[in-house]
């Protein structure tokens, strides 16, 4: 997550002692923050039934693809069927502001989604995922879920994050033209939403993957610049 102003999200920012900066960004945008206890409970629920000896896969479809900021043993191209990525969460705190809101990606039902699978080695699972929860679960706008992911090596179950459609940040249906306008102009303390889109499309292409909607939105955003 690298902005024009040079900010780049690193794993250090996700450590509990440093998470306060992100929390302040959320609070400044008027967003409610989940408590550390609630995040820990959510993670524990997600990992219920996972053996301590088991590696865990995470499916990334947005910034996790190009800036995982997690220690991982393996990164492969992956696809989940039955879900597609969509700019459907308002971003008024990082790559947007209340005055120039941006949008973030989340998974919505229907279709399929190409992305990457990150394998977290068993000894690292609890710690790395706690960092991931500090990154993705601060506001409760995502729902952590296990989905079956296809990889070149076969199918595995992976944790990923769906849009929480009952959350205040859920933007619902937005026409592609409106999405492009928002992404073209959104800017916040972490940079612009456009870079988020640029990086996502670049990473898809790096893996030889295509997402027609993302490519179309990027063309529209570039035409507005």
């Amino acid at each position, binding site marked *: 997550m690298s902005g024009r102003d040079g900010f780049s999200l690193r794993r250090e920012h996700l450590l509990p002692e440093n998470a306060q900066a992100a929390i302040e960004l959320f609070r400044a945008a008027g967003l409610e923050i989940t408590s550390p206890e609630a995040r820990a409970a959510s993670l524990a629920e997600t990992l219920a039934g*996972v053996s301590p000896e088991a590696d865990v896969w995470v499916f990334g479809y947005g910034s996790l693809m190009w800036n995982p900021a997690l220690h991982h043993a393996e990164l492969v191209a992956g696809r989940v069927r039955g879900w*597609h990525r969509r700019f459907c969460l308002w971003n008024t705190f990082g790559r947007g502001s209340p005055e120039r809101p941006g949008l973030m990606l989340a998974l919505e039902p*229907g279709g*399929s989604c190409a992305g990457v699978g990150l394998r977290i080695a068993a000894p690292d699972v609890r710690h790395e995922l706690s960092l991931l929860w500090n990154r993705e679960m601060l506001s409760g706008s995502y729902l952590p879920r296990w989905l079956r992911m296809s990889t070149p090596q076969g199918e595995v179950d992976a944790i990923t994050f769906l849009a929480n459609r009952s959350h205040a940040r859920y933007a*619902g249906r937005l026409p592609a033209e409106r999405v492009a306008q928002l992404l073209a102009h959104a800017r916040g303390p972490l940079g612009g939403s456009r870079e988020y889109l640029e990086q996502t499309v670049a990473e898809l292409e790096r893996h030889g993957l295509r997402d027609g909607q993302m490519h*179309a939105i990027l063309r529209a955003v570039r035409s507005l610049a």
Partner: protein
Amino acid sequence: MVTPLAAWLAACLAAAAAPDRALPAVAAAPCIACRGPALDPRSAFSTADWAALERGGVLHVAPEIPAAPADPSASSTAAESLVDRPPQQVWSVLTDFEQWPRFMPLVRETRVERREGPSLWVAQKYRVWLYPMQHTTVYRLEPELGRLEWQLDPTAPHDIAASAGHWELLAVDGGRATLLRYQATVNAGRAVPAFLERMLRDRSLRQMLDGLRDEVLRRFPR
């Protein structure tokens, strides 16, 4: 000649089978599936998947599971199919519970027993091969999201241990058609060979999605 006793008995049976008109109506929604995501088939689907759906195929997709399954006896399945009709028409058939025996495989009898807000208690009798079974399902209707959630009512007689899931309707191409999504997690509560469970599940899944689509097309011809 019909005796008074037989007539009385027939009337009682008819009354028992008829929908309970005294039940309060489920609140009408201003729109169906209007708050859920709208799908553009050219972007959300691969060309091959979309072609399969248009041919009437059923896609097996990734079920949505909150936690890694701790109960190995429960299994989840999810699938999608396409209905070439708007979500309003699909929803009207899907929530016509007492007509389910006409088009849902295995279902032999359904009766709406109770309504509370958006929830309906529906008693269902069905038959899996030769075995008659029954349970009561609590359905929660969220028409604006195009979502029909259910779970088994454990307080009513039930022949399986647990069942939960949802139907979801997504508008495709501006509401021209509907993507029908189904997910179920079932614990039969008894030892069922895996191959048998898989065969039964896949076959009934296919029959269910096909049956619903065919009923929608029958009721709403173009």
